[in-house]
């Protein structure tokens, strides 16, 4: 495949969405994979399909099993039960050095006794390629990650960002079918991390390799990934595109994990075909949802409200009795681009609202102890039953 075709194939992943096509053949497949360390289930019966050209993120806190899953893919750990397929081949018993995967380690694991060039060439030497070919491949790869100038340096003479690039070059140069990235940007400072996120995505588009990434940083996963699996305690809690996960969380866990959210407990009082009404003692009011809710009346539900979907008003709206909670501004955080307000509702519940500061010269509209009404559109809330 030419470079152009590869690039196109990648871009198409977002459009074709192979995960929604039952005919599509997964590139990597986890089949009921379990990994136990002693009595501890690091990974508990995980099944997962990843498609060619995806940039797939495994997201979760420490000890959630994401790294174990990645290490099983690399061949550093064998599953206790279940099967792993890469490109249709069962990986059981295939040692790390024979797998079509390469890994970029969290610590980068650059060989300290070798120069940048030797580090990148290391994997190619193992394949027994002719010297001239190795030289070309290495210099091409160093050019791709903009490290040509530093080819003769040793790792300890490089900055963190430069080491990260060398590690990437070393793992990509063998043209693996799958590139595994373990917290690829974890060791970089915030500014560099944001810049590198986009660079990594661009490089992935150029080389067309399937990337599987482990991260604990939801922002990183959201920015980079085609799809994200949110993990907790060895299980995948939710799987989907960044958009799906943010807008349609399936549980309080994912709602909380991705971005900020106000979680309000309530009871279903009215459930129609077109709408639903939930009464909440937490919020001290009635909440109107613009779609039907699956559940019997009287069931306990949670409403997830993103702070940026909420609006503050100084006057009580007169047109509706729903989705309108009164309270007092308790805390204000001015973040430049936006401001965060913590409003103490009359019910005692504290709700978080963010408002964009879209023009200069205007003092924030609300100040401490102001009486305000918090409102939102009927479609803004998502209903969770777990």
């Amino acid at each position, binding site marked *: 495949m030419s470079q152009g075709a590869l690039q196109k194939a990648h871009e198409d992943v977002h459009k074709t969405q192979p995960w929604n096509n039952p005919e599509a053949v997964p590139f990597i497949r986890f089949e009921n994979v379990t990994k136990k360390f002693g009595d501890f289930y690091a990974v508990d019966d995980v099944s997962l399909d990843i498609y060619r050209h995806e940039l797939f993120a495994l997201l979760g806190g420490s000890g959630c099993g994401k790294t174990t899953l990645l290490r099983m893919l*690399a*061949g*550093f750990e064998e599953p206790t039960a279940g099967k792993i397929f890469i490109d249709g081949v069962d990986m059981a018993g295939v*040692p*790390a*050095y*024979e797998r079509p*995967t*390469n*890994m970029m*380690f*969290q*610590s980068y*694991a*650059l*060989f*300290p*006794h070798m120069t940048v060039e030797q580090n990148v060439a*290391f*994997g190619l030497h*193992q*394949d027994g390629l002719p010297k001239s070919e190795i030289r070309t491949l290495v210099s091409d790869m160093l050019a791709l990650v903009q490290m040509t100038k530093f080819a003769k340096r*040793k790792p*300890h003479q490089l900055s963190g960002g430069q080491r990260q690039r060398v590690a990437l070059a*070393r*793992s990509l140069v*063998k043209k693996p079918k799958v590139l595994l990235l373990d917290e690829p940007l974890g060791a970089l400072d915030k500014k560099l991390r944001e810049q590198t996120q986009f660079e990594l995505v661009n490089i992935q588009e150029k080389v067309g390799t399937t990337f599987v990434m482990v991260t604990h940083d939801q922002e990183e996963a959201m920015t980079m990934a085609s799809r994200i699996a949110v993990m907790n305690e060895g299980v995948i809690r939710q799987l989907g595109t960044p958009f799906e996960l943010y807008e349609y969380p399936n549980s309080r866990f994912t709602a909380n994990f991705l971005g900020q959210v106000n979680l309000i407990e309530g009871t279903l009082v009215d459930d129609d075909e077109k709408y639903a009404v939930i009464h909440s003692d937490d919020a001290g009011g009635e909440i109107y949802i613009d779609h039907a809710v699956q559940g019997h009346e009287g069931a306990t539900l949670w409403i997830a409200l993103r702070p940026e979907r909420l609006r503050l008003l100084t006057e009580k709206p007169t047109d509706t009795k729903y989705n309108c909670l009164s309270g007092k501004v308790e805390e204000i955080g001015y973040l430049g681009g936006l401001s965060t307000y913590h409003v103490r509702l009359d019910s005692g519940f504290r709700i978080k609202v963010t408002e964009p500061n879209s023009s200069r010269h205007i003092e924030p509209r609300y100040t401490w102890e102001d009486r305000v009404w918090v409102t939102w559109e009927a479609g803004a809330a998502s209903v969770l039953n777990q």
Partner: protein
Amino acid sequence: MSSEKPTLKQRYDRLMLKHGRVLVIGLPYLWLMLFFLIPFLIVLKISFATAEYAQPPYSALFTWIDEGVNITINFGNYLFLLSDSLYISAYLNSIRIAAISTVITLLIGYPMAYGIARAQGSLRSVLLMMVILPFWTSFLIRVYAWIGILDREGLINALLLNLGIISEPLIMRQTEFAVYIGIVYTYLPFMILPLYSTLEKMDVSLIEAALDLGCKPWKAFMKVTLPLSMPGILAGSLLVFIPSVGEFVIPELLGGPNTLMIGRTLWNEFFANRDWPIASSVAIAMLLFLVVPIMWFQHIQTKQEENGQ
């Protein structure tokens, strides 16, 4: 405040702040001066004298004649060392035995150190403890124990004879073989400990990276683990090699009459022949022999520190 006289405590604090570092470093150096450098100079002085039937049994280096100093330096001892093949072969033999022992110690110690470094937390401390444990008994007693094991009527022979595996006792003690056993046994911890500390510090993900990039485990070891443990190999080897060259007790107690080592030669010159000048020149020559590898090691170590490894 400033016009007042400083209290004793303040004066002390000021003194420590200013000169504390010099004191901390200076005291051990003073100690070394007194008990290493001065004795060394005395030995050096004696090595340039001639043997005499006198008290002390050597000629004076400085003699006072008519308010002037007469210095008599005698290089004859050193020339004698070169001319008599006994000394040269004793040196070469010592170096050979020390080198072979070092290689054996390395071959035994490396896998042990590797195993300990990769062991789980609590097991690791137990294993390390067991390496250090022999130091709780005197070195001399442990060498005597080997006599009991290797002797004609020793443990091994008794066992093998009783089992009927051999009909004649094996001659193990008073051979070079016994000297190797003694040296390897005695100096093994000095090999394991520095190796352990380099291997333990090594990032396991480096080996995983090598495997990931297509190395079979053995090749990953050769390409990554081994070169990165070089500082430990060097340190351990020198800690074994240097004292082995001058070893006296082990060849004396376990070796045979033919096991010629420089430590024994030195002892003979000093106590049997009562030739202090020759004995001193043997000692000085041995020191010079050993200074070379030590300097080389220092050089490599500073180079590695500059490389930040």
